[in-house]
């Protein structure tokens, strides 16, 4: 079965209860990828990463190697690592941070070597208290072991890594907001262009920003080579990927599966993965790729978990989250709660997002409470159109960052897929699900 045949690239150690310790890491091949990388030239390491076409695992899916090659020659660039996982129902970086911090650190040193960065900042979501402690302990061990710090493994390459705690703000997962936050400011996304921090990043200097899962792949790639990685998956979606499965499934959790060769149905129903919907109930809708993504219906279950395959059907793999909603779910309530999240997390810079999120939430709230009006559905879609003109996918943007244009996804999905359910709320003056 394809679901279980692929090697585990980033979750190979999770069976060990002490997977986060240096001893276990070294016993299981840890830091071998770094030793291999340091025996190569930085250009060779960068070329090897480019060859695997590792798509970023943070949400946007941009090729990691391309980000690196955008750095112009110049002053010492910074590497910033995004461990601020906050997209609702996404909990895979959290797992890597708590359970395999050395793998992240090794990936950081390999990347820093390739781009010749002198300093790396690992930005960890503030709410991950245990994760922050595990990463700091691992970093202390890595300095002691000579894998980080001065003259790493006698190579002459030196790198300092600083673990930086966030303080609770979803928007800081957006890379330019993260840089602002790392500079000690409010997490306000920066105006684009420049589109990439490789041009102007931390403190105005060239900066590469990569996600925790993305970099966790690098030790394996160095040891096993680019061909072994690209042999997995298909098309642009190479390798394996972590999927965070949540909601109405028997076994919610994080699963590493081969890209494209695995389908949503495998993920939800395979006994080794989600194990099906509780009580034998039916799938009503699934949210692929985080709450910014348009929803799928049961007819999409056989779609492969590939970046382009999902994009062609009008949604995205995004952050690697998959939420299953069964036939007992009130979609108005689901759309309301997601919209409420965006209202609470809007940074407030742009009017369409700051004001629109509040209006949308209040209208959805009154529909759910039974005081909605016939005209509310059109009003919702009209407001969505102000946020993302055309309410199409990928969305048109009216705001500095994509938070604003992500708000319509759940509302438009809910109305387009389950219009009758919204109308019943209005007509009967309440939620049929109680």
């Amino acid at each position, binding site marked *: 079965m394809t679901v279980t045949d692929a090697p585990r690239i980033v979750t190979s150690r999770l069976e060990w209860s002490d997977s986060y310790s240096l001893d276990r890491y070294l016993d299981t091949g840890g830091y071998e990828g770094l030793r291999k990388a340091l025996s190569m030239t930085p250009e060779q390491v960068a070329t090897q990463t480019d060859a695997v076409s590792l798509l970023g695992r943070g949400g946007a899916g941009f090729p990691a190697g391309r980000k690196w090659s955008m750095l112009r020659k110049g002053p010492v660039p910074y590497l910033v690592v995004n461990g601020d996982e906050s997209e609702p129902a*996404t909990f895979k970086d959290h797992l890597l941070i708590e359970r395999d911090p050395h793998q992240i650190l090794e990936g950081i040193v390999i990347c820093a070597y390739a781009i010749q960065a002198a*300093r790396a900042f690992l930005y960890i*979501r*503030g709410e991950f208290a245990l994760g922050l402690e595990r990463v700091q302990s691992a970093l202390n061990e890595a*300095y002691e072991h000579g894998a980080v710090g001065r003259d790493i493994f006698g190579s002459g*390459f030196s*790198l300092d890594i600083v673990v930086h705690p966030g303080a*609770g703000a979803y928007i800081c997962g957006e890379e330019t907001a993260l840089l602002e936050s790392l500079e000690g400011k409010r997490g306000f996304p920066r105006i684009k262009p420049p589109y990439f921090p490789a041009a102007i990043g931390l403190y105005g200097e060239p900066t590469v920003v990569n996600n925790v899962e993305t970099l966790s792949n690098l030790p394996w790639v160095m040891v096993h080579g680019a061909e072994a990685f690209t042999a997995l998956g298909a098309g642009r979606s190479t390798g394996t990927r972590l999927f965070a499965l949540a909601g109405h499934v028997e076994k919610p959790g994080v699963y590493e599966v081969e890209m494209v060769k695995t389908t949503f149905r495998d993920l939800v129903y395979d006994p080794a993965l989600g194990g099906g919907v509780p009580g034998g109930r039916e799938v009503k809708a699934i949210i692929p790729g985080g709450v910014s993504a348009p929803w799928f219906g049961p007819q999409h279950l056989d779609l492969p978990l590939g970046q382009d395959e999902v994009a062609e059907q009008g949604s995205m793999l995004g952050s690697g989250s998959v*939420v299953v909603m069964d036939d007992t779910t009130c979609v108005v309530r689901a759309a309301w709660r997601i919209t409420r999240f965006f209202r609470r997390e809007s940074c407030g810079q742009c009017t369409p997002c700051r004001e629109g999120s509040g209006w949308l939430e209040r209208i959805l709230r009154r529909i759910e409470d039974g005081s909605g009006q016939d005209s509310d559905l059109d009003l919702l879609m009209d407001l969505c159109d102000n946020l993302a003109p055309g309410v199409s996918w990928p969305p048109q943007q009216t705001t500095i960052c994509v938070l604003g244009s992500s708000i319509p996804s759940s509302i438009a999905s809910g109305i387009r897929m389950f219009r009758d359910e919204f109308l019943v709320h209005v007509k009967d003056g309440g939620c049929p699900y109680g």
Partner: protein
Amino acid sequence: MTERHLSAEMRTRAEELLELYPHPRSALIPICHLAQEQDGWLRPEAIAEIAELVGLAPAEVLGTASFYDMLHTEPVGRYLVAVCTNIACLLRGAYELLDHAEEHLDIRTGGTTADGMFTLEEAECLADCGRAPICQVNHRFFGDLTPQSFDTLVAELRAGRHDAEVPPHGTLVRVRRQGGLRVDEDTIARERAAMSAAIAQRAGGGGSS
């Protein structure tokens, strides 16, 4: 020079943090966490001292801190109980759990118990959805919750049975940084050049055997 509010130990740790960054302002949030470790919340006196440490006006520190959910400019209880109600937890009974928590603690969401032990918050997704519904207590996770297991958790917290893994509110990271470079950029550049030369020699095949 105003009287110092941060303890000598916190002051030392704050100064260590300042050294980690090319620009002092980057240490603002980590130092705010330290101040919360000392006081449980961000007191105005702490904000004034942080401003002095990072070279800003107190209003700039407050303006930044107030953006972030974890930085509290008003007192909170010894235990900050944050119940997640976002989509993954919602689908598994989070609002029923939050209603129960309000009833059991006899406070509304956002409130603090009269004895100052518990503050209840409704949280956005905390990235532990495999065990939904979940809550955090001082940012430590408790999952697969039911109303009964929530009551047990509260009783155990009151009895101090989670003291080892759940420190009082404000203490975020109990592991201190050890090691690290304090090398100036010129030294790094010189080492880089030597390394590049060695790599070039190896690549050229004319090097040592």
